[in-house]
């Protein structure tokens, strides 16, 4: 073992060679980058140079600092990716929201103009309102349906494995595909039923309120199976002896449910409530493919709106990507971020206070 350690923990000539080669390649690439020469090899040089430097450091024969070098090498890939994809864009984005940035360049700082403007835009206020409405409806319905399904799936019926898997299945499929499948159902299948029942082909997607209900139907259909699984896990932690004792004492099933099961799975209820809350806030794919935010509103704050079913996430997307108003969209996104942050902080507060009680 001793020998292996020595070999693996250092090889001076190779280490130095790697370090020197790495630095040379890296610097050459950087020089080429700054000079703006269109040499396509510079990317490869840069990557090879960085790998060389790390490899050289790794082989450096130093027992004292080896652990520290390993720490740096192990942390670097993930932290680097994280910084470039999350931290830098976040800082830039918040900055851009105070400018007239158009996606490529900015000419001046406009202060809070973008923020002030969005609250004078009826279509955006409408989006906020229906998003909150959607979140509330969704939170109640998904949890209710999921909890009832979980009760069903923890009772003693045959084929439980099949039912659980079947109810969970919609959650596997991406929102884009699901949205188009349901668009088909609402515009081609449900219309046949309304034609048979009321003698008129009525598509739920053609009116704003019914289209909104349609989105809720699809989302509950997609999400309830997943939340159900979490409730099942929670219900399974309720000890059998407690339920038996309750049954011996003559508790009715309803009493057992409200006085034993629900209080005992309170932490699960918290988890599921916040899961549905945040996911409903972020809902985008189904919104895009099912209605694309369309729907007319005759008069809202004195304006005629055409974005009747456009939730916040989609509103941000269309403002920036479709209408090309980048800094304005970014300001809306920052507001979206603040709303989600507040929700998350409340969640952490509630969860940690529950833990103290336990």
């Amino acid at each position: 073992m001793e020998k292996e350690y020595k070999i693996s923990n250092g090889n001076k000539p190779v280490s130095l060679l790697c370090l020197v080669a790495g630095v040379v390649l890296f610097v050459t690439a950087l020089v080429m980058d700054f000079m703006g020469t269109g040499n396509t090899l510079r990317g490869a040089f840069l990557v090879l140079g960085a790998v060389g430097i790390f490899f050289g450091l790794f082989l450096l024969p130093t027992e004292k600092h080896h652990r520290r070098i390993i720490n740096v090498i192990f942390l670097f890939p993930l932290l680097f990716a994280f910084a470039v994809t999350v931290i830098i864009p976040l800082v830039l984005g918040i900055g851009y929201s105070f400018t007239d940035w158009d996606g490529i360049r900015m000419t001046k700082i406009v202060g809070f103009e973008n923020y002030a403007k969005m609250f004078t835009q009826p279509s955006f206020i409408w989006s906020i309102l229906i998003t909150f409405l959607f979140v509330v409806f969704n939170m109640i319905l998904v949890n209710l349906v999921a909890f009832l399904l979980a009760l069903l799936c923890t009772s003693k019926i045959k084929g439980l494995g099949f039912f659980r898997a079947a109810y969970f299945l919609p959650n596997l499929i991406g929102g884009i595909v699901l949205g188009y499948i349901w668009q088909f159902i609402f515009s081609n299948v449900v219309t046949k039923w309304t034609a048979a029942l009321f003698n008129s082909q009525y598509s739920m997607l053609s009116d704003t309120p019914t289209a909104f209900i349609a989105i809720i139907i699809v989302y509950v259909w997609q999400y309830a199976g997943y939340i159900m699984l979490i409730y099942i896990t929670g219900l399974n932690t309720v000890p059998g002896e407690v339920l038996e004792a309750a049954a011996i004492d003559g508790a009715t099933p309803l009493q057992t449910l409200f006085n034993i099961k629900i209080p005992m799975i309170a932490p699960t209820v918290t988890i599921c409530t916040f899961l549905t809350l945040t996911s409903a806030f972020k809902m985008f794919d189904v919104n895009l493919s099912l209605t694309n935010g369309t729907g007319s509103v005759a008069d809202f704050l004195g304006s005629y709106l055409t974005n009747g079913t456009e939730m916040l996430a989609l509103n941000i997307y269309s403002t920036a990507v479709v209408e090309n108003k980048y800094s304005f969209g970014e300001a809306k996104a920052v507001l979206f971020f603040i709303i989600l942050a507040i929700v998350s902080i409340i969640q952490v507060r509630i969860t940690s206070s529950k833990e103290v009680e336990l």
Partner: protein
Amino acid sequence: MHTKEKTSSVVIKLVIAVLVSVYVLFPFFLVVINSCKATADITSNPIGFNGVSIKQLIQNLNDVINNTHFLFWQAFGFSVIITVLSLVLLAVFGGMAAWVICRNNKKKWSTIIYFVFIASMIIPFQVVMLPLISTFRDVGKFIGIPMLQSVPGIVFAYLGFGGAMTVFILNGFIKGIPYELEEAASIDGCPPEQIFFRIIFPLLTPVITTITILNGMWIWNDYLLPSMMLGQNGAVKTLPVAVQAFVGSYVKQWNMILSAALLAIVPMVIVFLVAQKQIMNGMIEGAVKG
């Protein structure tokens, strides 16, 4: 149990369970049967079996697979490559980072990194997506490796976006691995990198299954990030982007759209049938720990 449930209530529950599963599976049933029809048969009778034939199915699938907006095999291939590469890198780099963070949790830098990771989990994609594109465009131009419309670029982005949750879940697990194990190996002369790859990493298998499922479900189905980074009609396309581009160009041609949906659904359903238990358990663990 002492008390047997009444047979009547069991029957009622079973009937409800069957009815709900019929409702839940009905859309999938519609996709399958209507993929086997021509458009005229779909519009005249979307629920019935009139006009269902294997021949029509093959023809629909052929039309869809070779459609220039869809190019199923290409999109499927890119989706597989991007998902697999992202998952492998997230598991390895995530494990490495989580181990270092966890084993130095008394040090200030480690606490700060961990806190930043956790805090970043509430950041919605919308707030970073616009500057992300411009940053990636500029970085790509600068270093000479295209970061937009390229596989390495999007894998790099998934590494960044998936990192926080991966580290969070792995960290919780590594905490439970006794440190004495590492000390003993260290006294025997085992260097830290070998301690990780030979001792710790193999022990992480169950939790890596969990994060792979969580990240895999998200990356495979993700639409917004690839649509922004790869573009709607770029050379590199994932399945959700291809479906969106395809449907956008074939309004109301339901036999084509539903056949495309069928093609997009089938891979996921096959994976689910094979690894049903792991997927359901992974999703539960992710929710309870996340």
